[in-house]
C-alpha cells in the first residue's frame, strides 16, 4: 500500500493544500481548501482557463447557491488532478467562481473518498493512502 506524507498550512481556520490541475495547455498549481463538507471538487474559472479549458469543454451545466443568489458553473473533466501526493487522471471538477481571494479551489469528497486520510493538525501533516479496490 502506497502512503504519502503531505503538509498543509492553516489560514482562517481552513486547511490549505497544494493541488495541480493539468489541461491541454499546461499544468497549474494552486492553493486548495481541503473540504470534507464539499461533495464536488471546485476549481475557479481563471485556473481552468489557464490550463487550456473553457466552458465549451464542460459536460454539464451546474447551478451554485451563493450569498448573493444563484449562479451557474459547469462540470469539467480535467486531464489530471494531483493533490496529497496522488494523481487522478480524467477527473471531474465543478468550475465556479468562489469569489474569495486566496484560494484556487476546494478539494472535495469526489477526490478524498478514494483515500484514507489521517489528519495531524499539531504537525500540519497529512498521511494519505489509496484505498485498494
Amino acid at each position, binding site marked *: 500500500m502506497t502512503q504519502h506524507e503531505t503538509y498543509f498550512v492553516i489560514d482562517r481556520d481552513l486547511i490549505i493544500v497544494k493541488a495541480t490541475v493539468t489541461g491541454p495547455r*499546461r499544468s497549474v498549481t494552486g*492553493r486548495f481548501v481541503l473540504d470534507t463538507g464539499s461533495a464536488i471538487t471546485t476549481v475557479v474559472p481563471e485556473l481552468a*482557463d489557464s490550463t487550456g479549458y473553457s466552458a465549451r469543454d464542460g459536460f454539464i451545466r*451546474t447551478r*451554485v*447557491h*451563493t450569498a448573493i443568489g444563484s449562479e451557474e458553473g459547469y462540470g469539467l473533466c480535467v486531464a489530471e488532478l494531483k493533490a496529497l501526493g496522488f494523481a487522478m487522471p480524467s477527473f471531474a471538477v465543478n468550475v465556479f467562481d468562489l469569489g474569495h*481571494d486566496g484560494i484556487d479551489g476546494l478539494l472535495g469528497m469526489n477526490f478524498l473518498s478514494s483515500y484514507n486520510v489521517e489528519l495531524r493538525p499539531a504537525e500540519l501533516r497529512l498521511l494519505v493512502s489509496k484505498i485498494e479496490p
Partner: protein
Amino acid sequence: MGPMSAAEKLAPAISEPLTWAEICARYPDEWVCLVEIEHEVPNGVAIRSARVVGHGKTRRAPFDQVDAGWEQYKLIGHYFTGRITTSSPRPQVILDDAARDLFRHRS
C-alpha cells in the same frame, strides 16, 4: 529599436529567485504566477523560493502575463500573497441525483 509588441508590453521580466517572504513583500495582496518553485518540503504548500513571471490584483492578471510571454513553462504556480478573505468559501452546488452520478462516475 522598433515599437514593442503587445506581448512585450504586457509580459514582465522574470524575477530572480525570491523567497516567499520576498515575493509577499514585493507584491503585497496580489496574485502571482511562479515558476521554478522550490518547496520547503516535498508535497508541501510552503515555498522556499521561486521566480515571478506574472502578478496583479486579480486572479486573471498574472495568467495573462504568462500567456503573453512565458508559454515555455508547462508548470506554473498560482498563489495569493495575502490572507484568505473569508472563512466560509464553500458554495452550495445544486445537483440532482443524475448530475451527482456524472461527477462520481467520472472521478
